[in-house]
């Protein structure tokens, strides 16, 4: 399986998945940490992929959504955004609405 296929599989098998640097408990970059903090705050159950441990995925994910930076959040197969977008959506309650629309449980 090549990187694009692997990414596709991960995204279709997990409702909420974050491609990030490090892990939710030990993020290796401030932007990845900011997004995990939003998700933790909303008590959303999510999976994560550490791109630092896989160079193919790290490069592949940038191609996958034509998005040059990490982190990247996917909800039910759809690319939602990177750090700036997630923070802005959270502040405007748009992220909460998205989770509601996609039937992802979170703390209201």
């Amino acid at each position, binding site marked *: 399986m090549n990187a694009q296929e692997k990414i596709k599989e991960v995204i279709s098998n997990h409702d909420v998945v974050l491609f990030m640097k490090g892990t939710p408990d030990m993020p290796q970059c401030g932007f990845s940490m900011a997004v995990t903090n939003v998700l933790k705050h909303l008590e959303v159950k999510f999976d994560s992929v550490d791109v630092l441990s896989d160079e193919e995925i790290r490069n592949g994910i*940038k191609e996958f959504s034509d998005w*040059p930076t990490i982190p990247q959040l996917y909800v039910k197969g759809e690319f939602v*955004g*990177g750090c700036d*977008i997630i923070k*802005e959506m959270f502040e405007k309650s748009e992220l909460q609405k998205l989770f509601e629309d996609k039937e992802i449980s979170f703390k209201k």
Partner: protein
Amino acid sequence: MAIKQEEIEKLLKEGFPDADIEIQDLAGDDNHFSAKIKSSFFKGKSRVQQHQMVYSSLKGKMGNELHALALTTEEK
């Protein structure tokens, strides 16, 4: 790897001629910037599409020479 604020501004101006652009060098290291861009080109685009347009105006520099650009886009 670093990039000058003027260069970012130049590329953004080329990509979005009508835009109001505010750039800040957040750490003074030519590596961490924030940009606020207000342009009519964003009309009808999703936020992801708007940011993608900005990234392509930076011609591949984002994620390479340019490590961090905190981005806010708005329709004009």
